[in-house]
């Protein structure tokens, strides 16, 4: 029996038991949303475009947490740590070596690799040390907070890597935007927060979303949810649980690193407060309220919540944070599967109830 070509096998994994949304109606809807996203920036001003990119930047971190927590069952508070590590790494590399010859792109890859490496080391200690559950959360939270305190104390001039000063509480700034090298007289394309950057980030988002769908519906994803549901049984089916948890942790943390780099190049700064306790709460809010066990609900939830948060910060960020905290409590008590998820499942549940009432 000949195996189907790789591309067919991959595409068939876009749908599966681990993701909501299947059939031509779903994909048609998704295509419409994508088309709208492509056209939207042409219709509004540069500020809104830049702002939308700001929203998109965070989604990678949320998707990463969705993988680690929603699919893998491991509650990690470390996403903002890797966000910060990658952001600072990008800053250090580009402030030392500049933006020529497409270096910013290499710096992006290197920064994500650094975050991934740290995640691999930390993850090794956690998962191969059989640390799970609440202890995993506590250790990752502790790592994030200590990292923040460490970076906040690096104000003196002796704290530098090459010519890049870490700058303590004020953080690092002035690093170059992402720059795509272009041959010819005009030189490289500098991706300031405007149209070109928008399309690059949108493309990355689409790629990440689709790739993750394929991953979670593959045999890897099957084992991951098996581990979430019953780790003992997964072991007794011959799977090395630790390796799968480590893999999903590194992938999810690398995605957080991608968010970190994009954030840093968007605003051209990175500060320790990106790793503070309030910042660390936000990915948890987005993923929990959106619906952590599914990529699509996480994606939608994150964008809605970030938009909502930004709308509320007009009144003051404290109010926005109070609302976020309240949403978290309400979600856990009333709809632990996530608010967006509850909405998505509502038609099914109403249907079941009316079928039951009818009989």
């Amino acid at each position, binding site marked *: 029996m000949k195996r189907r070509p790789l591309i067919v096998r991959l595409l068939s994994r876009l749908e599966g038991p681990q993701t909501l949304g299947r059939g031509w109606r779903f994909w048609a809807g998704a295509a419409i949303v994508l088309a709208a996203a492509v056209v939207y920036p042409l219709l509004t001003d540069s500020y809104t475009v830049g702002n939308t990119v700001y929203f998109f930047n965070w989604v990678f971190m949320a998707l990463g947490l969705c993988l680690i927590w929603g699919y893998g069952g491991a509650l990690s508070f470390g996403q903002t740590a890797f966000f910060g590590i990658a952001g600072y790494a990008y800053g250090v590399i580009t402030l030392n070596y500049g933006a020529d010859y497409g270096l910013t792109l290499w710096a992006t890859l290197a920064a994500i690799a650094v975050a991934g490496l740290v995640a691999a080391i930390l993850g090794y200690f956690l998962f191969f040390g059989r640390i799970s559950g609440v202890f995993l959360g506590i250790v990752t939270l502790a790592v994030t907070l200590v990292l923040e305190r460490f970076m906040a104390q690096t104000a003196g001039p002796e704290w530098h890597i090459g010519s890049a000063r870490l700058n303590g509480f004020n953080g690092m700034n002035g690093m170059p935007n992402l720059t795509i090298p272009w041959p010819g007289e005009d030189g490289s394309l500098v991706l300031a927060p405007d149209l070109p950057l928008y399309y690059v980030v949108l493309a990355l988002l689409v790629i990440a979303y689709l790739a993750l769908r394929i991953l979670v519906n593959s045999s890897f994803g099957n084992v991951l*949810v*098996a581990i979430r549901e*019953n780790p003992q*049984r997964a072991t*007794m089916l*011959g799977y090395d649980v630790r390796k799968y948890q480590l893999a999903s942790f590194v992938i999810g943390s690398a995605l957080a690193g991608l968010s970190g780099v994009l954030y840093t190049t968007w605003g051209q700064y990175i500060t320790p407060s990106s790793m503070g306790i309030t910042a660390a709460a936000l990915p948890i809010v987005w993923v929990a309220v959106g619906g952590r066990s599914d990529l699509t609900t996480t994606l939608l939830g994150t964008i809605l919540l970030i938009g909502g948060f930004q709308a509320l910060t007009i009144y003051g960020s404290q109010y926005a944070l109070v609302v976020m905290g309240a949403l978290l409590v309400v979600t856990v008590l009333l709809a632990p599967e996530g608010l967006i998820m509850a909405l998505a499942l509502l038609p099914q549940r109403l249907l079941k109830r009316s079928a039951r009432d009818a009989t």
Partner: protein
Amino acid sequence: MTPLLETRKLNKRFGGLQVTADVDFSLERGELHCLIGPNGAGKSTFFRLILGEYEPTSGQVFYEGRDITTLEPHDRIRRGISVKFQVPGIFKALSVKQNLEIALQHHLEGHSLRGEIGRQLDFLNLTAEADQAAGNLSHGQKQWLEIGMATSLKPKLLLLDEPTAGMSPEETHATGEMVHALRAEGMTVLAVEHDMAFVRQIATRVTVLHFGRIFAQGSIDEIMADDRVAEIYLGQGHGAPHHA
């Protein structure tokens, strides 16, 4: 002939409690061996030592002649040991089909994977429930699903921890038939059981554990006739272990 499974002077202490004491046990290929004994005799602990979930305080475990005492559980599974637990260890929130897929995707994929899943669903009489959440199955169906998952790995040694717990007499008998069929396919079975009708139906040999030690071994008739065995179950002289 090297025994399929062997333990030498296997000991396990938890703090001050000796749960497994000096167990020298060997299991030949093709046996249908039952492990019985009063509650607290250490039967489940013994299983966990074989599986690697517990590390022995001292002693060794041999499988196919090789020392596996320090091998991780998932590695032991990969060498051909499989287990069905007392409390159904299935993935309750996932569909029945997905449960089987996770078990089978180890050594199958694509077309043959789908085919084998279908075959297993048929064999287990669960085709109608394929897309339902496994948690919605009846208790007996859950047990069979788990046995199906455990056997789909085509193990050489199958450990069953109280496979007929909670089953009706008909279901119990059907399970016994299933065990005979598995043996015909080349599996060796070691089962912890309380239901003596089931033990009688399947066992080629029986071991009695008491306070973590091997108390008696032999055929089911020899064990049932042994007064000392009756004593440890009831504390007095009367009444051999009988039908549940």
